[in-house]
């Protein structure tokens, strides 16, 4: 018997086995549990097809902030990742793709030099191999511990997206819970197609900051994926069990960069 947990949304008890069978989506209410990069990759790619690149990249402490080096080490130990994004080549439903998956578990998915660099390298890998680039976002924004260097990663990833566009290679973004701050204000909003998981919080300023500005509670559903689609910033909301299929469809319909085609 696997252990059961109460769903944060509907509060029903769901066993871990059942949850995993349903891709970590509550079978009762459809609540999408947060995934780490490893879980996400195994759900999305054709089995055994993922080949990681840029794995060796590791943050320094560019503004020599007290405690940052230790914080990084803790997170690396806890997550078995070097930083908050994993990138690599893979196949999805038989089509070749460059995949980048952010992990909120690693310092809130925050973007510092390594995340910015890996996203940039992934986009350039896509450009050079003429392969669609898919990025799953999950981030609290820029990594404050890297000061101005983290802010500059917004410019870096956005300029990489500009170059990717110039090579006519598609960029598909999947916004997952939560995607905010400097990630929203850079590559996350620059996809040719932008998908979102149901219920994901997507915004620039966090809800508490906005509430502080306006001095009142935010309306129900504000900044959720459904709200963002209604406001015109998300192309489609795709439940987790349809993601592979929808991404495969998008890859097929964006310039035929399919298996075996090289630049």
């Amino acid at each position, binding site marked *: 018997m696997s252990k059961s947990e109460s769903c944060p949304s509907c509060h029903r008890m769901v066993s871990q086995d059942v949850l995993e069978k349903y891709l970590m989506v509550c079978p009762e209410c459809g609540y999408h549990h947060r995934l780490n990069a490893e879980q996400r990759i195994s759900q999305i790619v054709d089995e055994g097809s993922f080949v990681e690149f*840029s794995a*060796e*990249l*590791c*943050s*320094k402490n*560019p*503004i020599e*902030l*007290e405690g940052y080096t230790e914080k990084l080490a803790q997170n690396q130990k806890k997550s078995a990742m070097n930083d908050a994004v994993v990138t690599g080549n893979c196949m999805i439903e038989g089509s070749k793709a460059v995949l980048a998956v952010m992990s909120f578990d690693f310092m809130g998915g925050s973007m510092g*030099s*390594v995340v*910015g*660099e890996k996203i*940039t*390298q992934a986009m*350039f890998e896509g*450009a*050079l191999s003429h392969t669609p680039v898919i990025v799953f976002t999950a981030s609290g924004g*820029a990594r*404050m511990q*890297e*000061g*101005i*260097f*983290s*802010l*500059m*990663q*917004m*410019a*870096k990833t*956005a*300029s*990489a*997206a*500009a*170059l990717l566009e*110039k*090579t006519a290679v598609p960029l598909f973004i999947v916004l997952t819970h939560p995607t905010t*701050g*400097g990630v*929203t*204000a*850079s*590559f*996350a*909003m*620059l996809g040719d197609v932008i998908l979102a998981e149901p219920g994901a919080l997507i*915004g*620039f*300023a966090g809800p508490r900051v*906005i509430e502080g*500005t*306006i001095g009142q509670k*935010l309306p129900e559903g*504000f900044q959720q994926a459904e709200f963002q689609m209604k*406001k015109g*910033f998300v192309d489609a909301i795709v439940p987790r069990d349809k993601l592979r299929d929808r991404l495969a469809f998008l890859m097929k319909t964006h310039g035929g960069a399919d298996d075996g085609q090289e*630049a």
Partner: protein
Amino acid sequence: MDKKHEDLLKDSVSRMEQFASSDPRTTERSSWDCVLLSRQQGRPGAATYIDLICDEFMELHGDRTFGDDPAMIGGIGTIDGRAITFIGNRKGMNLRENIERNYGMSNPEGYRKALRLAKQAEKFNRPIVCFIDTPGAYPGLGAEERGIGEAIARNLKEFSTLQVPVLSFIIGEGGSGGALGIGVGDKLYMLENAVYSVITPEGFASILLRDPSRAREAAEAMKMTAKDLKRFNIIHDIIPEVPEGAHKDPQFTAKAIKETITRDLDTLCKKPAGNLVRYRIRKIRGIGEFEGSDAWWTTLMEVFKLTKDLH
């Protein structure tokens, strides 16, 4: 400068003089003093510098989609007869103006106006000069509804490939993504007492130090002054202010800005657009501190080769 403007400035200058800061002639100004000085009401803003350095200036309004954002100004000016598009964050010179200008915090339409004017400049081959002076983009309800994140993201992307020279000057507060939204260009300068950071020291203190009252300490730790950013090679150079600060002698700083603009544009306007954009992207591409492979140069060259206009 009109009479009212001048009075306001004088008023603020006298207030400034009361506010205790270390004597710049004997000691180096602390990061926190730079923060206070960069925010001080009465510090010359984009409108003042445009007024002081241009022979003539015509403001242009609106994003053509939603409205006109008073926290972001833009238009066409001339310096010694050369047409330049100016874009700048606009704070108020007093409380009433600040309310009207939303303390220099733009909504999405501000960034979209900036982009419209930048694309207009590109079409007519006019260089662009941006003046940055904002606590950040506005964290309000309407800003979110109209996609402040998307508006900034688009500017970062579009500005990185504009086919005309883009110079940016951080003249006061360079606050996070809201500043970066008009801060991607060929050259980035900071005034001596300006600051530029990923978050305000107050925000940094409350999130990382778990105590908003430790903002002064945060300001030092964040390394957000012109000197810090010069040392990090993020900015190209520091524009001098008189020892008391730019409010004391706006003319002095305006002259230095004007000289920088003229000198840079004399060089950059001669460069083929493709070269300009390649250099700009190379500079942005190289920012980041990490261990591991940094042999990105050849890859970038190969990517350029695949494009129609940058090969």
